[in-house]
């Protein structure tokens, strides 16, 4: 690791503002920031680690020539990567990089779920890719491991993990809802293991409205605040398709069944899903 370079890992569920943070901060003085750095490699490591196929030591060994090397050769004061994949690797990353900070961006699970569901149909938990991974998990001897391509490596829980027994019967919407809830659980539990000054969790909705919170967040990352950041967040960014998709009644019911308790835990209790103006 570069002597003075401090790593910052910006984590979240995806479709929650991690890429927005990257776009907003890229080029900032003293910061080298990436979005989903070496994603194909990291996502596979993260999924294998979550699913118990890769030990913590092995995960660290695999991350070392990737993020480890990048941070080692970095010249800026802060080296950051915003990536939902890193959410599953907080524990090994925290141990590998003792000065690293973790910023979690959490967004209303209904908006995350509808965004993934409608706008990334072929890339996230599509039926075919899930079946391929599931089949391989059952027979790792005679079948080749799925390639390190994004669509294959979305976590499938073991039966002893959150809703692991029910997961095989989930449709795609339920899988996406599960991802959000489980991602939030992983982040909050891993954050609880780290010192307070190394972790910060903010809700995207508050970050866009509360400039003071934004200032504190930028300060946490370790760079200077610029008022343009607040302006930047007033417009939706990283918009794949500028249509505001809402969950249907049936989808909302399915979502709440899986992610309702986590919604409460993340402070979204009683709030209506909001509309996004593009």
């Amino acid at each position, binding site marked *: 690791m570069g002597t003075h370079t401090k790593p910052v890992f910006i984590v979240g569920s995806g479709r929650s503002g991690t890429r927005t943070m990257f776009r907003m901060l890229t080029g900032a003085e003293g910061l080298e920031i990436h979005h989903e750095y070496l994603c194909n490699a990291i996502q596979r490591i993260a999924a294998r680690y979550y699913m118990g196929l890769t030990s913590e030591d092995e995960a660290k060994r695999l991350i070392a020539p990737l993020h480890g090397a990048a941070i080692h050769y970095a010249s800026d004061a802060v080296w950051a990567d915003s990536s939902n994949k890193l959410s599953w690797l907080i524990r090994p990353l925290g141990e590998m990089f003792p000065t690293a900070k973790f910023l979690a961006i959490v967004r209303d699970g*209904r908006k995350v779920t509808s965004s993934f569901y409608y706008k990334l149909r072929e890339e996230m938990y599509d039926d075919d890719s899930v079946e391929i991974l599931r089949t391989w998990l059952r027979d790792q001897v005679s079948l080749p491991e799925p390639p390190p391509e994004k669509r294959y490596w979305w976590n499938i829980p073991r039966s002893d993990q959150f809703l692991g027994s029910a997961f095989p019967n989930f449709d795609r919407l339920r899988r996406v809802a599960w991802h959000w809830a489980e991602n939030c659980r992983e982040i909050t539990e891993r954050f609880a293991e780290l010192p307070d000054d190394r972790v910060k969790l903010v809700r995207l909705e508050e970050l866009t409205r509360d400039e003071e919170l934004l200032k504190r967040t930028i300060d946490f990352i370790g760079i200077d605040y610029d008022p343009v950041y607040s302006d930047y967040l007033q417009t939706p960014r990283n918009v794949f398709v500028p249509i505001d*998709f809402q*969950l249907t009644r049936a989808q909302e019911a399915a979502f709440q069944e899986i992610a309702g308790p986590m919604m409460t835990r993340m402070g979204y209790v009683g709030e*209506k899903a909001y509309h996004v*103006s593009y």
Partner: protein
Amino acid sequence: MSPTSLSCDACATPLTSAFYSPLHSRRGVAVFVCSQCGLTQSGFQPYARDRRQTLSADADWGNVRHGKGLRFEAVCGLVEGLDLSRVTDILDVGSNRGDFLRWVQQRHPHAAIWAVEPDERIVDYRHSPGVNYRKGKLEDSDLPQEKFGFVYNCQTLEHSNSAVAMLQTIWRAMRPGALMLLDVPNISSIGHSDIVEEFFIDKHVFHFDPSSLRRLVEAAGFEIVSPRGGEDPFNITLLARKIEMMPEPSGYGQGTLPLDNAALIRAYADTLHRNRERLARLVETKLRPLAKRQRVAYWGAGRIFDALVKYGGLTSSDLHLLVDKYLAGLMPETHGIPIQRPETLRLHEPQVVIVLARSGESAIASRAYAMGIRHVLKFSELLEQVTDIAVTPAAIDL
């Protein structure tokens, strides 16, 4: 045929009161449900037949003659699974543009094909080797008795003046034990919440549900060998075998079918009306703003597109490109918008493709992804966004 003197084709019960009259019918269509057996059929005012091509979402849709090609792709797998190697004579009922016929010619060149089709304009196979083309409707054709070892009857029975008579004619022309593949639209599909196209079009006399079709086929002297269902809610496909003796027509018990079909049609009329009103909101709040931000292509130039234009107010400035695999080449344009081949997506590189289709919706979406389109939206899901969302517009803009 006049609605005032109509009787049920299956059980001859007089059909006295119409349940439904679709918009923009050129034939004054009135839809009846038989109070005894539940068969749904249309009655018509006298009309002058025309072959004007329209892609209308209303009852006047017709004469494009591409539906059978679409359906052949869907049922082809079922036909491929049959052993036709020893079949010497095949009957193609309503041979249309010859999709099935050409397939048979390639795979079973030994077989003679009788092709019955009234619309000569689309027949380019009349002189093909092994093809015996008969111009006209099947009911008017002079078919030999007990000749055919296989009958392909796809999306035709619903057009007949008498479904019973057509099935009986086919039965007589089939060899004992021969198979018929029968495929018709499924009236049950009108129960879908996202329907915007008129189901009861001028071209269709009969509107089968799985129960009434099965009864009709069995009463005509067939046993159902392989009913198919579930995978395509929009059509009923079955394989029927001619059994030795043609039984006396009977067995049209009342059951709940008459009431079920009547309720289905009433609910459909209400849903269709409401959905068409919602199309304007869909265009205004979703599709038009989208087109202002991104290059949007529509895949599907048929009836849903017509509904979006006619009832939703979609205009040529709301889209970048309109493509359709089947209609491109058959129709140069619709509403002044050129219909292009899907392959042209490569040239125009739209950021979003909106799929306007029914049973082919997922297949088209997959095809669009395969062509490198990253963002593909389905009409059914878009309509849900103005009909069935869990919340009303609220609070926070992000």
